[in-house]
C-alpha cells in the first residue's frame, strides 16, 4: 500500500464520524480522479466544477453504505462522476437535424481540414473539429455518445470502459454497434448535404 492509499485509508473512518477536516482532505485527494472523468464526459454547456460538486455530494450521501479500500473508492467515485455526466446529457433537449448549411464556418473548415488530413492542423481547426464532432454526437442517445467518445475518439480499452460504466461487455458491444451505425448515417447525411449542389 503506497503513501496516498494509506492516507485515504486513515481518512475513511474519520469521514464516517463526520469530521469536516478529513472530509475536505478526502475531497482534495479524490478531486483529480473526478475531474478527469467530468472534463471529458460533461456536456460543454455545464461547468465542470459544478458537476464535480454534485458528484462529491452524491458521494458523501452514500458514503456510509460504502465498504471497501482506496482502489474501490476511486473506482466508485469515478462511476458516480460518469453517471452524473450521463444524467446531465439526458437532461438536455434533443438537437434538431444536422445540416451542412446550418454549420458555422469554422466547423465547415474543420471538416475540410480533417479530410485533407494534415499532420499539424491549426488550433482553430481542431476546435472547429471538436465542435462538429460534438454536434454529430449530439444526434446519438447519451449512452451511445459517451461510448463512442470513449472507444472511438479516445481509444480507451474495453476494460476501462467496463470499469467506468459498470455495463457488461455484451451490453457495450451492442450499444457501440448501434451508436456507430447511427453516427455513420448522420455523417453520411451531412456529407450528402454538403456534396449536393
Amino acid at each position, binding site marked *: 500500500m503506497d503513501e496516498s492509499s494509506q492516507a485515504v485509508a486513515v481518512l475513511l473512518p474519520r469521514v464516517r464520524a*463526520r469530521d*469536516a477536516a478529513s*472530509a*475536505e*482532505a478526502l*475531497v*482534495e485527494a479524490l*478531486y*483529480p480522479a473526478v*475531474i*478527469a472523468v*467530468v*472534463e*471529458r464526459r460533461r456536456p460543454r454547456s455545464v461547468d*465542470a*466544477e459544478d458537476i*464535480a*460538486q454534485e458528484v*462529491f*455530494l452524491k458521494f*458523501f*450521501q452514500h458514503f456510509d453504505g460504502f465498504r471497501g479500500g482506496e482502489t474501490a473508492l476511486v473506482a466508485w467515485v469515478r462511476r458516480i462522476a460518469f453517471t452524473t455526466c450521463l444524467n446531465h446529457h439526458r437532461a438536455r433537449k434533443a438537437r434538431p437535424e444536422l445540416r451542412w448549411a446550418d454549420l458555422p464556418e469554422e466547423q465547415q473548415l*474543420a*471538416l475540410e*481540414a*480533417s*479530410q485533407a*488530413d494534415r499532420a499539424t*492542423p491549426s*488550433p482553430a*481547426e*481542431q*476546435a472547429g*473539429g*471538436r465542435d*462538429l*464532432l*460534438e454536434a*454529430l454526437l449530439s444526434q446519438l442517445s447519451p449512452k451511445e455518445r459517451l461510448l463512442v467518445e470513449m472507444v*472511438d*475518439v*479516445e481509444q480507451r480499452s474495453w476494460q476501462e470502459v467496463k470499469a467506468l460504466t459498470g455495463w457488461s461487455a455484451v451490453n457495450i458491444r451492442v450499444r457501440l454497434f448501434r451508436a456507430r451505425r447511427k*453516427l*455513420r448515417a448522420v*455523417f*453520411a447525411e451531412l*456529407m450528402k448535404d454538403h456534396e449536393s449542389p
Partner: protein
Amino acid sequence: MNHLDEQLKRLMRLAEGATPEPAGAPSPWFARRVVQQWLAGAEAAGEGASWSLVSRRGLACAAAVMGLSLALNFHVWWHSEPPERLAAQSVISFVLPR
C-alpha cells in the same frame, strides 16, 4: 462506406487534439464548500428524521385513544339495556302523553 468511415475517423483524430487537459487542482475553498453543504444537508435530514419520529409517535397516540374509546363504547353498550327495550321506551315516551 469505408471512405465515410475513414473521413469520420479523421474528424475524430482532429477533434481529439482539441480536448483540454483536465485541471489538476480544485478552485480555492471547493472542498470546504462541498463538505459544508454535505454536513448542512445531513443535519437537515437529521431534523427531518426527528420530525418524522414525532409524527409517528403522534399517530400511535391517536390510534391508542381511538382504540380505548371503541372499547369504552362497546363496554357501555354491553351493559346497557337490550335494544328492543330501549326502542320500546323511546316509542312510549314519544307517543304517550306525559
